[in-house]
């Protein structure tokens, strides 16, 4: 196990480096001089040249990448063009909010998906199965930013039950565990949860149906076990794959919440990205994407390790 862990960690290093390189290149592929990502467009020429030298932008690309990487490793993601503040200072509170939203949505999606998928897999071919499959297909086909708008129309505009915008009363972005704040989380989390719900339903349905067809289930039934006990056996066998799916979904939602955050003005990384795109604030764009992608790389690693620990049948190759 130790060597597996070591190998898996070592394998993540080149991936992380390459992800860093892709993020570095984002500023390079942007139209115009990358110096525009650091100095405002109305800066005088001699300042531009000075900054170009200070930032090493007159050096060859691989050297620039090295300098950039060294700064990133030290936690320096550059400064925002729009606000002048370090990128990280805006980013770290946004990440907390996005993580909160993504975790709530994946939890909701996971629970619903497991119930639907488990029922569908157990009673395969029944009306219930068809209904669950329909819900699953709808879940992965729905443009969730639109679903968010529809929920706002129903629950905020028509019924006036839940707030439509922000993460707290008066546009506050600091999270507190009380109903004033939680009610802001409901609509975005439900909206975002339809994707993992659909995917988990499909996966769990497949896994459960496959397990129910295996001989050991027949044997358990022959032994006279109650359905509850058989259910426990099925859960034990289905859990590693289902957990792996939802673990990755958490990562996808962290990166993919930009649309939902835009709809609900949720003060997370998505909203940050959105305003960075509008203001062509490339350092913020680059830093946010780098941190989210690194989170995803780390999550992949953790999911892999948990899955291998839970299910020793998976080859540690």
């Amino acid at each position, binding site marked *: 196990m130790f060597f597996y862990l070591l190998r898996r960690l070592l394998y993540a290093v080149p991936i992380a480096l390459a992800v860093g390189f892709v993020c570095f290149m*984002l500023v390079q592929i942007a139209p115009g001089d990358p110096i525009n990502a650091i100095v405002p467009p109305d800066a005088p020429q001699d300042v531009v040249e000075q900054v170009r030298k200070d930032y090493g932008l007159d050096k060859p690309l691989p050297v620039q990448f090295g300098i950039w990487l060294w700064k990133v490793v030290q936690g320096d993601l550059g400064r925002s063009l729009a606000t002048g503040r370090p990128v990280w200072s805006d980013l770290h509170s946004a990440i907390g909010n996005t993580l909160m939203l993504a975790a709530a949505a994946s939890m909701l999606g996971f629970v619903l998906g497991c119930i639907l998928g488990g029922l569908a897999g157990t009673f395969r071919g029944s009306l219930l199965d068809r209904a669950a499959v329909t819900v699953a297909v709808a879940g992965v086909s729905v443009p969730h*930013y*639109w679903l968010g708008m529809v929920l706002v129309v129903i629950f905020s505009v028509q019924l006036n039950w839940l707030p439509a915008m922000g993460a707290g009363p008066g546009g506050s972005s600091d999270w507190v565990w009380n109903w004033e704040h939680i009610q802001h989380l409901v609509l975005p989390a439900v909206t975002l949860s339809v994707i993992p719900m659909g995917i988990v339903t499909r996966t769990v349905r497949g896994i459960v149906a496959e397990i129910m067809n295996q001989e050991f289930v027949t044997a358990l039934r022959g032994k006279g076990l109650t359905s509850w006990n058989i259910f426990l056996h099925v859960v034990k066998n289905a859990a590693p794959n289902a957990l792996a799916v939802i673990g990755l979904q958490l*990562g996808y939602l962290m990166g993919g919440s930009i649309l939902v955050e835009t709809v609900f003005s949720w003060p997370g990384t998505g909203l940050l*990205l959105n305003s*960075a*795109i509008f203001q062509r604030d490339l350092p913020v764009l680059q830093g946010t994407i780098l941190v989210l992608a690194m989170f*995803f790389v780390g999550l992949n690693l953790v999911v892999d390790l948990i899955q291998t620990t839970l299910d020793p049948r998976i080859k540690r190759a």
Partner: protein
Amino acid sequence: MSTTTTAASAELAVQARQAVAKSQGYWAGVWKRLRRDPVAIACACVLLAMLFVILAAPWIVPHDPYQGSMMRRLRPMGTPNYPLGTDELGRDMLTRLIYGGRLSWFMGIVPVALAFLAGTTLGVLAGFAGGRLNMLIMRVTDVFYAFPSVLLAVAISGALGAGIMNAILALTLVFVPPIIRVAESVTTGVRNLDFVDAARASGASAFTIVRVHVLGNVLGPIFVYSTSLISVCMILASGLSFLGLGTRPPEPEWGLMLNTLRTAIYVQPWVAVLPGVCIFVTSICFNLVSDGLRQAMDVKG
């Protein structure tokens, strides 16, 4: 004697014809199975009808898609002359939804088609060549897998700036890696089968083997997988426009229309969500047709 011979040979000929018919039977079988799938057929009909309507747009729409009027902004559904109401600039919704389908379909299908070409080429190359080339292509693919797809699309088109071509480029880059993975794995599976060895032993060049023996066996699964990406691509493309990254106003496109109508949900909520209904219906139909195709072609996964 001769009559029996003729009868026998006639029967043989019939049998031979049947055998030929059977050997051509793969696609016939796929079609037969697909025909028995009412959901997939119904969705395919909906898609074909939509395609017809958006292609015939200039001849059937009642109004000009760009011509608005401040006098008739945000009318409700069922207004005379404007059956689906008007948008925030007083343009006819029905007209704009029909025209919007053109760009939305274009941006849903073109990136997948491009990614299908590029991904199949690279994936088959990696799978068939094996060794270092495989290693190189697959490790680069791994890097792009380290980004959640929405994030990658937003990152690339965000850096390149708004515009249809940039959005298409970004979406293509998002879908190439998964297609490479599928293409590589099916090609690796086919490469070690006996008939490929036989072809090699009979002196066929690598190019001929790939063209005749490999492609025929791998294109089906890759194609089915790619069709399942169209729905995702359409949602993502409209999502980019929704963020202001894809199409630019005043061009009608479903995602962009949702964006510009966002503030109108307090005035005419049901008109404002119409473009999303179009995206939803199209995307669910593409998904179900793709599911039907997968089952009919008996592709695993």
